């Protein structure tokens, strides 16, 4: 019989009294109970060795004329330049060796929610896998994972990856009925809206199999968080029962995104952030079923600090919305709220009051740097 002990900790809250233009006090933050028996690494992967640093690589050649085709050769060059610049290594393989050894078991957290247009793209995921194998990992030591099988199936990475790499989804779909792939002993407990099931459990592979994680989010608008990038992809993409944080115009993503991302061992093992910004979606996110709200940053961002990258992302999404005359992601007016399909047709409609302050909140939890003045961005052109 298995016996393990709980380590229960009350999550600490940042002391900030205001986030963005929003005043936040203790009553805005639900009480979180974190259960994890995993201790943090000496240097947790988030924010990692490149705290407050972002390498942004842009190429006008990475997409075809209409943005529908991706040029894999150009993407490879962008990836090599980005990784070398981030680490300061002269050789690409040495850059990857900074993070990984042949003994590692690596999970690659992709994002398939924005299918078909704004997902972790095949060439980027393939290039990541190629470099891991070059470091000396076997294909069986590499997992590409997402929460929902139906989304993963649609994006269909298999033809682009070597045989032996595992494609894994924790649940068949977003129905909240499949729990076996989640770790019952590693969770965050909180009561947001009086729900009975108050736990969000970490995917078992993360706690019990992976030694390292690479996060490959996209540049996306999000109805609850304002924008979704590194933090939300790794947080909401690694735990069960998270949709319960949004209800009737209110979202608790302000504090929950960072709280989840900070749970061990997820925090320590997520060592590399590669934001796929070849395409993005400026409204209606995290979904992108058509090209209607898709835009083309033609950029990949590299770092270990998810907060710094996401802080840049907030402006990228907000600026794109401004270009289209849409309300800001920081808009909190009740008049903008309409919890219906109206959002799909009108970029001036919010389904929830958005919480872009989740990025600053995560900074307060020690996950990275949110102050633009302190973030160092290296911009490269390929």
């Amino acid at each position, binding site marked *: *019989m*298995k*016996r*393990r*002990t*709980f380590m*229960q900790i009350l999550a600490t809250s940042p002391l900030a009294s205001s986030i963005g233009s929003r005043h936040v006090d203790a009553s805005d933050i639900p009480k979180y109970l974190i259960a994890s028996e995993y201790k943090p690494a000496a240097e947790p992967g988030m924010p990692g060795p490149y705290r407050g640093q972002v390498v942004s690589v842009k190429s006008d050649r990475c997409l075809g004329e209409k943005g529908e085709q991706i040029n894999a050769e150009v993407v490879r060059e962008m990836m090599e330049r980005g990784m070398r610049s981030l680490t300061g290594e002269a050789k690409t393989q040495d850059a990857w060796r900074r993070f990984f050894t042949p003994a590692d078991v690596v999970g690659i957290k992709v994002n398939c929610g924005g299918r078909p247009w704004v997902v972790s793209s095949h060439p980027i995921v393939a290039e990541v896998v190629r470099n891991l194998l070059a470091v000396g990992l076997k294909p069986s030591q590499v997992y590409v994972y997402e929460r929902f099988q139906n989304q993963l199936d649609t994006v269909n990475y298999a033809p682009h990856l070597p045989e032996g790499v595992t494609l894994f989804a924790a649940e068949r779909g977003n129905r909240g*009925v*499949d*729990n*076996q*792939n*989640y770790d*019952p*002993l590693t969770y965050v407990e909180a*009561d947001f*809206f*009086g*729900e*009975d*099931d*108050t*736990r969000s459990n970490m995917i078992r592979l993360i706690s019990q199999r992976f030694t390292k994680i690479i996060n490959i989010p996209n540049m996306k608008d999000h109805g609850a968080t304002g924008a979704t990038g590194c933090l939300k992809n790794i947080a909401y993409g690694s735990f*069960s*029962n998270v949709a*319960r944080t949004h*209800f009737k115009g209110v979202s608790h993503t302000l504090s929950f995104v960072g709280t989840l991302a900070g749970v061990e061992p997820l925090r320590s093992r997520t060592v590399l952030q590669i934001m796929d910004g070849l395409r993005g979606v400026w409204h209606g996110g995290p979904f992108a079923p058509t090209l209607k709200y898709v835009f083309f940053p033609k950029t990949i961002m590299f770092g270990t600090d998810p907060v710094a990258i996401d802080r840049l992302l907030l402006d990228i999404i907000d600026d794109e919305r401004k270009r289209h005359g849409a309300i800001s992601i920081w808009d909190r007016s009740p008049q903008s709220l309409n919890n219906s399909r109206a959002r799909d047709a009108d970029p001036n409609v919010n389904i929830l009051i958005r919480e872009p302050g989740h990025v600053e909140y995560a900074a307060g939890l020690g996950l990275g740097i949110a102050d633009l003045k302190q973030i160092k961005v290296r911009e490269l052109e390929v």
Partner: protein
Amino acid sequence: MRLFWLLLNLPLILWQQGIQTAPALKQAGLEQIAVPPEQADAWQKAGFKPVAMSSAELESRQRLLEPRVAGRANVASATRRPWIDANGWRFARNPAGKFYYDLPAGRAALAAAEAFAYNADAVLKIDPADLEEAGKMLAFLRSLPQDTWPPIADLAVVDDGSPELDEVLNLLARRNLLFRIVPDSGSQFPITIKLGTKDYPKSEAADPSAFAQKIRHQLGDEKRSLRIYGTEVVIGRLTVEGKRARVHLLNYSGREADGMRVRVRGMYGSGEARAFGHDRVTLADFVAAEGATEFTLPKMGIYAMAELTAK
């Protein structure tokens, strides 16, 4: 007439089809059935053990809802939690009561399990299409120990007989807030609900979901004797005798519950479960710590019973 199987409190199937259906009943494993009085002799001659039950006798029993997820999310609820039609609160309110179900197709097995879990005296008028499934469920229930252990409750309710209390009890049971009906005086529970008092005005009971939530907060989740995670459509009942506890779990969703986590207050050292359709189920990730015991049921269909033994 209460026969042996009624003493066991196995739910009784009311069968109103003619004697020509005897082979189908035998194939389903049913020998003990309730039948119209005029058919009793014929069924007995056919080798069955019939209980004569007239329409009047049936109607004298309290009629129950068909157990199901009613699909009315947000009705009397502040969350996405689906609405469940369940009868456990009626059994808990009136443990000595006599009940009957009039069930459409597809509900017989869950109804039988529900009545069994609460040790209720219930007759099930089933759709003939459910005969096989009902037979399987009754065979499964027959293989379980009858649970006469005292049910555990975390709070008390004074039953004033008012209609307002119906929905309050329903929502308390729905949320796995274990209650016991007590007389108007002398409750030993830290929370005793009596509608119409300063603490629990009847006006609050008009919103039973909010009322149940208030009780939940008063009690505190950590102090609840039974918690269920990984699903919002399973209702539990907990009984304890000495160093052993039984958890009855009823899944109203109509589909398998996968990896459901159960937390029971108290330190138990071992446990085992039986689940309909799966028989013996190993309790996974069994942990006893900080005054509570947790385990995972890897798979569960309509009904499961877990038995825990203290160290």
